[in-house]
């Protein structure tokens, strides 16, 4: 893809045809990958890498997403995938799918939290259904309350 803006064409198709997104580009670079990842996330999937190999992860399998040293990791029950996408992008895309920011560095799948317990220094911790625990910062507790009570 060169520096020119991408041309966008939208075309209505017959109901029996399969809906699809095709990208015509000069090279598959990060921007193209980002667009593809966005489309996938809208369809209930995320792309993640383990040792350079790409996997499709159903969003419902994701427990939480964490940013560590400017790298973003997706955690399922047993595996950890790295993604090129930024945490704030995933937070925005997955907001409608029960994901919520609970600390500066993590976004959690609310459907995977088993219980909430107090932690040291006025914080809370989310106990996930796989037994893992992650910290909920005080700053994000009002948002969490509002979301859980349907007031967000």
């Amino acid at each position: 893809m060169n520096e020119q803006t991408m041309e966008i064409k939208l075309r209505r198709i017959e109901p029996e045809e399969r809906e699809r997104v095709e990208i015509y580009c000069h090279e598959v670079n990060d921007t193209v990958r980002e667009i593809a990842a966005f489309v996938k996330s809208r369809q209930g999937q995320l792309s993640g890498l383990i040792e350079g190999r790409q996997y499709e992860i159903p969003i419902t399998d994701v427990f939480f997403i964490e940013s560590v040293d400017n790298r973003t990791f997706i955690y399922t029950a047993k595996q950890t995938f790295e993604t090129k996408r930024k945490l704030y992008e995933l937070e925005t895309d997955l907001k409608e799918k029960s994901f919520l920011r609970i600390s500066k560095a993590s976004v959690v799948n609310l459907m995977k939290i088993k219980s909430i317990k107090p932690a040291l220094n006025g914080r809370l911790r989310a106990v996930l259904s796989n037994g893992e625990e992650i910290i909920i910062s005080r700053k994000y507790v009002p948002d969490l309350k509002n979301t859980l009570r349907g007031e967000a």
Partner: protein
Amino acid sequence: MKLKEFIKSTLASYFIIVTLVNVATLVLGSIFRPEQRFGYEAFLAPLLYGALGLIPVFIMYSPKELTIKQIVIRKIVQLIALEFILVLAGFGRENLKAENLALIASFALSVLIIYVLVHVISWVLNLEMARQLTMDLQSYQSRELRREKD
């Protein structure tokens, strides 16, 4: 923790400390100086000790999330600073003598007890909040599952 939230939680601790200082004064005073009578200015003492007790609270402040180890180390440093400030304020350099040892030790012990109680009370309040959030979470999950089925 952001500064604003930190100040909010510190203020909550302040009122817990003031109440507990009142209780400690009652207990220690009844044991060591039951004959002592005070004027209205005595009402200032718990407020003052509460404010002094807040000074080392800033040892816990960090804009970054602290690890468990960092929290424990800072809590220990905070307690030592708290004992130092309050014992010095309570007795002054001239009263820090061997003959007052029992009183000083009781005072230091009551500071420790108040320190622990403040944390226990905060923990209980946090526990209640966590319990309420877990109940809200369960309702949310049932709502979302119903919505998915529909």
